[in-house]
């Protein structure tokens, strides 16, 4: 045992296993659990999209594509970014089709980080950011946002942690786990910090399609920001295509070329059949996306209001499909709360602390579940709170 350990790299040895993993193990073995712990849509990919992939297989499209992805797909992505977000990216040299937003994040970080560079991660945050920064040889520096600010970062909070080693900030809006969406004003205030300190912004906009109250604004659309933005998006959430493993990254030519070097050696290309499916999703999937968005919005309204009614204070999240209520009034830590809720009432949620220190005192509930399940989970949580607190 001791010996094999020496084979491992220091970086990997020091990576902490995700706190989500532990909850998965706990919940996976139980019967009758209602899971609000799922970070993906409850919709199956539209049939027309699945059918397009089947057709591509029937026609024998089973070989590699260009490193950056099928040109036909990149052209669809370029049109989509323009029509939906008013952004102009060249299909030929400013975008790469990736294996999910996950791989896009990886190549973006590896393209900009030198050993010891610092990358600012705004917490509560998606669990992969810091490990990916570490794997790229960088150092993750966290900023803790506040519930009172709806978990929006302030310029002052950013300034506080910026050093001469700071290279980039990872922004995630709409946010996993808080559901917070940054509006144009918020983005502008971050933009001024980025400009002042000449930082790269890695904008994780994977939930861009899922905004419910205001129109989503991309960070790259803010004046003068396009040149320093690596925009990450994909098909997993808005198009309900998590299992296809398909995303993309858009960035100015120089950055794209750098990322393409990593991508061509480490990945070659994204899965071909998934790329064919994505072409169909972009060409004809708009109506399905609208329907799904409407459905999430209704469930959000129902669920967040119900949480507040049963005494779990929760701000109204503007996007994604997560509610992030406070459980502070119970006096429990978020781990204790989540564990007891799971054991006593068989409702699985994710404790907020796995998303960073400022997530403590909260739980993440995904409302991408059927109305029946949401209703039942509210009933169970109410019972739990009334019995115990």
């Amino acid at each position, binding site marked *: 045992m001791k010996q094999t350990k020496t084979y491992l790299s220091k970086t990997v040895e020091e990576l902490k296993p*995700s706190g*989500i993993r532990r*909850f*998965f193990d706990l*919940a*996976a073995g139980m019967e009758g*659990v209602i*899971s609000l*712990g*799922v*970070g*993906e849509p*409850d919709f*199956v990919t539209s049939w027309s999209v699945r059918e397009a992939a089947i057709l591509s297989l029937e026609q024998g499209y089973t070989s590699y594509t260009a490193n950056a992805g099928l040109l036909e797909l990149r052209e669809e992505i370029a049109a989509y970014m323009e029509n939906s977000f008013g952004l102009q990216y060249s299909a030929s040299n400013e975008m790469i089709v990736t294996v999910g937003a996950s791989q896009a994040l990886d190549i973006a970080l590896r393209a900009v980080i030198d050993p010891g560079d610092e990358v600012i991660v705004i917490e509560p945050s*998606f*669990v*992969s950011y810091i490990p990916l920064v570490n794997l790229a040889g960088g150092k993750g520096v966290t900023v803790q946002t506040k519930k009172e600010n709806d978990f929006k970062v302030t310029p002052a909070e950013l300034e506080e942690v910026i050093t001469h080693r700071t290279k980039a900030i990872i922004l995630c809006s709409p946010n*996993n786990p808080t559901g917070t969406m940054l509006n144009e004003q918020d983005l502008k205030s971050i933009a001024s910090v980025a400009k002042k300190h000449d930082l790269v912004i890695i904008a994780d906009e994977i939930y861009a399609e899922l905004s419910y109250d205001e129109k989503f604004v991309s960070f790259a659309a803010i004046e003068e920001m396009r040149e320093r933005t690596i925009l990450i998006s994909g098909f997993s959430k808005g198009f309900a295509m998590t299992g296809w493993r398909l995303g993309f990254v858009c960035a100015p030519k120089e950055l794209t070329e750098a990322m393409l070097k990593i991508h061509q050696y480490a990945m070659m290309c994204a899965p071909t059949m998934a790329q064919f499916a994505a072409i169909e999703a972009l060409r004809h999937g708009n109506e399905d996306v609208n329907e799904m968005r*409407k459905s999430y919005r*209704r*469930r959000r*309204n*129902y669920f967040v*209001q*119900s949480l507040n009614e049963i005494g779990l204070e929760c701000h109204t999240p503007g996007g994604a499909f997560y509610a992030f209520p406070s459980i502070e009034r119970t006096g429990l830590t978020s781990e204790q709360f989540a564990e007891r809720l799971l054991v006593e009432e068989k409702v*699985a949620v*994710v404790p907020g602390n796995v998303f960073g220190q400022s997530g403590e005192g909260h739980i993440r509930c995904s409302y991408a579940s059927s*109305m029946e399940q949401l*209703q039942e989970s509210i009933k169970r949580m109410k019972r739990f709170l009334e019995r115990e607190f």
Partner: protein
Amino acid sequence: MQLTEKELEIVEILEQDARTKIVDIAKMVNISVNEAEALIKKLEESNVIVQYSSIVDWSKISGHEGVTAMIDVKVTPKRGVGFDEIAERIYRFKEVKALYLMSGAYDLSVIVEGKSMNEVANFVSQKLSTLDSVLSTTTHFILKKYKHDGTIFEQGEKDKRIVVSP
């Protein structure tokens, strides 16, 4: 009739599940329960929401399986009333479950349900084809219902997601 966005949402919610409770509808569209009640009443009174009913898979109930036929009917329209008069004469029969005026090769599509093929055949030969304006009928029997009014009869799709994920 022009509906507001909230009204449209209520119609969509109730069309998907007519049993959704008013308190839940109110939350889903972000209005008060009183407001939701009033809007639903208005939609009912203006006949936008015509009726609440269940989709039943009769083929599962022994002895009540029944048969459904779609009948293409050619008719002569009448001056002044067009197809409406003959349509009314046909849809008043309780055997007729649906009736549509069609474009194309025939005029009326009549959906008829009966206990047996015989019963439907009798209806067609004795009631339908003997009507004055009816020129011809073509009867198609439905062999199996896969999907009806947007609902798939054999719902095979379970939630395949892992229970907790990032």
